[in-house]
């Protein structure tokens, strides 16, 4: 039995996969978004999840993090079945994420937004600790560190709504990291960023992995996926059509025809949009 209290030391659970998914399916009415997905993530790796728009990537993330309830199948995090759990409970298992459409508390400052990420840790403190830490503004040390790491120090007191897109992405990542998660899920973290910015994010994600966190990364930026992912899952029409290392997966003919086509090496995401609409038929 692995409780939520083990979040801080995921190293102790080496034999259990950070996340294991079996026969996961989700349909919205007649539309099958995820048909029958089975995979497990190895610990302390970066796994890329790629696929054309409408392949069901975000739906899969929403299923894992509890925002959607699966129609079939099961999800286990660190050996514990969390199928049907609500997002806050999944978060309590040490899962933190970012969102495809950036979700931030727009009217709050950058610092406060990051501080929200610390909620789990602050809540788990014992009453005595809470009383002791009362005047020391608990969580501030974490925020300070992340402000530096993500280069947000100058805007710490700014309202996030006024920040440029790339910076908002970084705030979101900082908030996810503030939870010191054992499983970090990033949904297109570099969308809308410059090449330099996204390279920086790539390096950061690698550091996070090296510190012992498992990362699941949905990304359209193929260059970045190639550069940092240990493994890549290819999703199409709600099915996993390929799974291989970041170097080899591109050679898979199925992947080439289904997804990559002629866009190899491009950072744009306009290409795959053509295949949108395929989801309606998938698995029906």
């Amino acid at each position, binding site marked *: 039995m692995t409780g939520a209290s083990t979040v801080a030391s995921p190293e102790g659970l080496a034999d259990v996969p950070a996340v294991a998914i079996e026969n996961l399916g989700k349909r919205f009415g007649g539309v099958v978004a995820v048909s029958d997905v089975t995979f497990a993530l190895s610990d302390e790796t970066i796994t890329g999840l790629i696929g054309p728009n409408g392949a069901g990537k*975000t739906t899969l993330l*929403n299923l894992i993090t509890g*925002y959607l309830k699966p129609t079939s199948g099961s999800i286990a995090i660190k050996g514990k079945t969390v199928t049907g759990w609500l997002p806050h409970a999944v978060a309590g298992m040490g899962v933190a994420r970012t*969102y*495809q*459409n950036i*979700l931030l508390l727009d009217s709050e400052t950058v610092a406060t937004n990051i501080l929200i990420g610390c909620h789990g840790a602050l809540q788990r403190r014992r009453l005595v600790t809470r009383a002791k830490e009362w005047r020391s503004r608990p969580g501030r040390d974490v925020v300070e560190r992340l402000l530096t790491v993500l280069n947000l120090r100058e805007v710490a007191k700014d309202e996030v709504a006024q920040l440029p897109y790339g910076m908002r992405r970084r705030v979101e990542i900082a908030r996810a990291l503030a939870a010191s998660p054992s499983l970090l899920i990033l949904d297109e973290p570099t969308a809308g960023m410059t090449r330099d910015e996204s390279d920086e994010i790539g390096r950061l994600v690698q550091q996070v992995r090296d510190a012992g966190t498992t990362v699941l990364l949905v990304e359209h930026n193929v260059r970045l996926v190639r550069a940092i992912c240990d493994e890549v899952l290819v999703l199409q029409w709600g099915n996993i059509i390929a799974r291989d290392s970041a170097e080899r997966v591109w050679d898979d003919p199925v992947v080439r025809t289904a997804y990559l086509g002629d866009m190899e090496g491009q950072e744009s995401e306009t290409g795959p949009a053509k295949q949108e609409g395929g989801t309606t038929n998938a698995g029906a």
Partner: protein
Amino acid sequence: MLQQTVNGIALGATYSLLGLGVTLIWGVLRVLNFAYSQFIVWGAFGTLIAIENHVPTVFAVLIGMAVAGVVAVFVDMTVMQFMRRRGTSEFALVVATIGVYYILSSVAQDRSKSQIETFPIGGFPHGSVDIGSTSLPSLQLLSLVISVAVMIVLGYWLNRTRLGRATRTVAYSAPTAELLGVNSRAIFALAVFVSGCLAALAGIFNAADSSTLSYSDGDQLLVVAFAVIVLGGMGSVKGAVIGGLALGLVQVYTTLYVSGVFSNAITYLLIVGVLIVRPNGLFGVREEARV
């Protein structure tokens, strides 16, 4: 027993009219409008003043409907549209409608010097129509006919006409509708005007039923309207009519089998119960938030 069922349907007929107006506003504008209670009152006062000035009853009713419609559009164009443009939260919109309610109510109160006024019912149908062993008051029969007719017209309007499709597009997303060349402001105004007319109609029927009119008559009717749209599902035209009739029947049966004491309480219990079991009403469409 049969007579009481007829009573319930008759009672529900006015409730349906109330529900139709509120559901239309909610469906198009997504606002729970407390000022609606005063549209009811102002419409009835409009008719009262017209009748007092010897306008034939049919025209007086139309004048009352126009008064309420114009007031509703005026409120919408001044306060609501301004707030919508600024993207104000739905809570603030609701509270603003409460403010409007307060203003309109005090004007009506001042006009009637806080008194209950006599509503002349000479020109309204009276007596009852016998159907087999039961009798149905003519006034209620008329309101039943009107609410079913309004339901059919609204249904036809929204489903079959170009304007109706435009209204539904605006209801779905005003910016999208604007992109498609629909004048969303005009659509909003039209929906608000129609809903004001329906409010007036309900208020006039209520006043004619009791032969009295007071500035606070709308308050109870507003609660009934809320109950009706919760039962029927907010934004559902068919639901408003069925919800109204259902509420009428439930209230009558409660009066009959339990006690008239609880016919009020049952309204609220129904709201709570339906919301707990079916949060979007009996005929409502599920709304799913997504990440």
